[in-house]
């Protein structure tokens, strides 16, 4: 009987979590419906809601009930500012840019709050009226939890009614389908979009206020929940408001039950369900499969010239890399090369096939763990350790790729993020990974029994060789007929299918290749630093590799390398800034997405192409400029 009441109280906690999931995925669904933006910042805005309540209490003396109204209002207004200043300018672009931008905003917001309030949780008391518990006969129901569930049900029902049954909701639904026509009828759609974003964000903040007394108020509360909400959204499907609400509640309860029956695996429950849903009904339980629209993410970010085709430049860079360790700190250079290879692997998928993975840390990190484990615990030689790490990454890539290529664009990004989170949880809980400590003091060993890698220079040239091999593989892939097919898939997958290509095979193969190279980078990094830790598998690492590729130029050959150089330099030499590094990274994301989508190398290449018009373009004349390819897709009305 005791255990039964434990089950019930876990289910109640599950219902509370489900309420938060429902509110968050509801707000996300509304925003996505009208703006076509996956609001990555939703978690950060949830966190802001909780902080707003905390600050109102401690600095303005306003308690829970005023905060319930004021916090969503304040955060909603901040959302409106974000929409006006930033998001508005991205609606014409691929939806992925909105997601990347809001990811950058997440980094900024979290960094600022962490700097201001530290990482530890801050307490927020349950309001007096809602303390205590009600005896239901079979269990005690904490009043506050009952209130959260009841209030959420009322809010969700009201939102559903407003959207599905009122005149205002009809505007919203119509504008979701055809915004320009609704404007032609005389309705100010841009303002409506702005207010919708504000309302969606306000819902997130409301969830934050309600969560504050249940959980502590901390800068990380948003990033912990957002990945789960993504999984909920993938399970429910973005199509329907009702779907978002129901799947939010249901998954919360299921998670609560999993906590009772199998506590260690409870964090995985939702992700496992996501995998099952992906296998059985890829569109999600309530979703409709939208017609695959061609992604222009890859083509929008690629540039005209090809800087690296200049062989003098290539030779100069090679020479520079060979002599560099004599005047630059070798460990720094090795880090750069490891992350550059990681970024190249990522860009192969994102920049050339248009598949933006938000989960590449899974391959990088798991490979680092395996390599470190093999080298340290099993005592394997470095070459075998690296191979083992790479093989595991390829294997995980095969499974994740097989699952995630069922969806495209933003859904692909969300699925990869959720899958990678599973690896993070495994790394956190498994025995061999060392939990929070990671695997430390990994021996570098002796390569082939001949070269002692403890010699910094030998290690450097090994890392450089590994980088060159990886870089060469990526280049060969892109320039081969296989690469041409990938380009075709990125520009119009439906057309490639109609031409008889099994595009899924090509996507999966590229995914595995990208995962393996990311793993190669991770293993090498584990030997270089002598450490495999949770940082390597955390989603922030997936974000960091995206940042590298984006800064350098995601569709260029040399871009990811330059991007890695910039990011590692900033992280190394500005490390004393602490939490501000995250903020700087976030700002860089925002700037890149808003004004500099072709990246440093892309910018240089188009500059060179403009300055040296005839001669340098002669080599690339055969290939159509990216602009013309985009025009091919646009259906002329």
């Amino acid at each position, binding site marked *: 009987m005791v255990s039964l009441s434990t089950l019930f109280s876990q289910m109640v906690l599950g219902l509370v979590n489900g309420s938060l999931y429902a509110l968050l995925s509801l707000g996300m669904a509304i925003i996505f419906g009208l703006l076509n933006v996956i609001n990555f910042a939703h978690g950060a805005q949830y966190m802001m809601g909780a902080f707003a309540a905390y600050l109102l209490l401690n600095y303005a003396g306003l308690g829970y009930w005023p905060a319930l109204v004021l916090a969503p209002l304040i955060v909603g207004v901040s959302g409106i500012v974000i929409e006006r200043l930033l998001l508005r300018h991205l609606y014409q672009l691929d939806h992925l840019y909105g997601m990347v931008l809001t990811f950058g905003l997440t980094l900024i917001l979290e960094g600022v709050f962490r700097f201001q309030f530290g990482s530890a949780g801050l307490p927020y008391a349950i309001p007096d009226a809602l303390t205590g518990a009600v005896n239901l006969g079979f269990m005690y129901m904490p009043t506050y939890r009952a209130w959260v569930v009841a209030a959420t049900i009322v809010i969700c029902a009201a939102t559903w009614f407003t959207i599905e049954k009122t005149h205002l909701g009809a505007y919203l639904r*119509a504008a979701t389908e055809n915004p320009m026509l609704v404007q032609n009828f005389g309705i100010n759609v841009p303002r409506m979009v702005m207010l919708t974003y504000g309302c969606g964000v306000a819902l997130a903040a409301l969830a934050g206020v309600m969560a504050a007394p249940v959980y502590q108020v901390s800068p990380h509360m948003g990033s912990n929940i957002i990945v789960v909400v993504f999984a909920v959204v993938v399970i429910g499907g973005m199509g329907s408001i009702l779907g978002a609400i129901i799947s939010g509640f249901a998954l919360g309860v299921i998670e609560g039950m999993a906590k009772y029956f199998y506590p260690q695996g409870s964090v995985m429950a939702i992700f496992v369900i996501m995998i099952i849903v992906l296998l059985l009904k890829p569109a999600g339980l309530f979703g409709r499969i939208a017609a695959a629209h061609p992604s222009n993410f890859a083509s929008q970010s690629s540039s005209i010239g090809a800087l690296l085709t200049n062989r003098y430049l290539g030779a100069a860079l090679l020479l520079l890399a060979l002599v560099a360790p004599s005047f630059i700190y070798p460990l720094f250079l090795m880090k750069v090369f490891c992350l550059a290879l990681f970024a190249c692997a990522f860009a192969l998928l994102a920049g050339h096939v248009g598949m933006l993975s938000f989960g590449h840390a899974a391959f990088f990190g798991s490979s680092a763990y395996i390599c470190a484990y093999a080298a340290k615990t099993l005592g394997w030689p470095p070459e075998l350790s690296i191979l083992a790490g790479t093989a595991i990454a390829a294997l995980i890539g095969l499974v994740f790729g097989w699952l995630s290529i069922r969806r495209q664009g933003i859904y692909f990004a969300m699925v990869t993020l959720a899958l990678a989170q599973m690896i993070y949880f495994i790394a956190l809980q498994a025995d061999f990974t060392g939990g929070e400590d990671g695997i430390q003091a990994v021996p570098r060993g002796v390569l082939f029994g001949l070269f002692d890698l403890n010699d910094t220079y030998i290690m450097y040239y090994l890392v450089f060789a590994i980088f060159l091999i990886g870089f060469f593989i990526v280049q060969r892939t892109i320039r081969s007929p296989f690469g041409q097919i990938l380009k075709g898939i990125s520009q119009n997958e439906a057309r490639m299918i109609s031409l008889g290509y099994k595009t899924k095979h090509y996507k999966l193969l590229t995914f595995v290749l990208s995962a393996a190279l990311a793993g190669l980078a991770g293993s090498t990094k584990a030997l270089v630093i002598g450490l495999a830790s949770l940082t390597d598998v955390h989603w922030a690492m997936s974000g960091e590799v995206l940042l590298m590729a984006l800064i350098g130029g995601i569709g260029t050959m040399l871009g990811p390398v330059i991007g890695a150089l910039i990011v590692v330099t900033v992280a190394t030499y500005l490390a004393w800034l602490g939490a501000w590094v995250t903020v700087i990274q976030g700002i860089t994301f925002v700037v890149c997405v808003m004004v500099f989508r072709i990246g440093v190398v892309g910018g240089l290449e188009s500059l060179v192409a403009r300055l040296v018009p005839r001669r340098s373009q002669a080599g690339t004349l055969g290939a159509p400029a990216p602009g013309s390819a985009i025009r091919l897709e646009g259906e002329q009305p």
Partner: protein
Amino acid sequence: MTLVETTLRQAPAAPASSNHLCVRGLQAWYGESHILHGMDFDVGQGEIITLLGRNGAGKSTTLKAIMGAIPRRSGSVVYQGADLIREAPYRIGRKGLAYCPEDRGIFASLNVTENLLLPPVVQAGGMSLEEIYGLFPNLFERRGSGGAKLSGGEQQMLAIGRILRTGARTLLLDEPTEGLAPVIVQQIAAAIHLLKNKGFTILLVEQNLGFACGVADRHYIVEYGRVVDAFTSDAIASNKPKIQAYLGV
């Protein structure tokens, strides 16, 4: 250019109230593609005007450019004395211009009544829901149906009916007869005649010459984004070969 200007001068002059809608030098672009190269034409108060021309000539684009639905446009569109070329699309809609797109633009997630009630009333004097149902009885029978479940003809009636409620007096109709059964085309023609008698001004894009002659006062021929010729309905018969040459493929 001189040839065009001469033909235009020979063309029948618009009625005295020709300053109702004046389009001058209207240019429009889709991305990098230049579609309209300077459209010039007038629509007088209470007139029914058609734009005729081959596929891809720029007829639909002209309507969209007038409504502001194409971001990159230049020239001037003067409606009742005010230039609309710099206005936001939703402001143009509030000035009394109503647009019925080629794809009809019925919202699938709204039922027939919701679709009818969607466009806000911009001026007094619009038709009531009962009047619209009276004009198109089919719609009344399907009033609870989802927008995606209608036949092509019903969709077209809904698309036209929807903009009659708003009080807009100038209608821009893009190929209202496209792909419809002859009996439905007759119904649409009857409705347009009724609207003309009620004093509506209509700018019609048409491929169906017979239909166009039956309902319209004057016709502009559009080629490569320009108006190249103009005729009154009376002149159509005598210029048949010329028009066939304009429109033939």
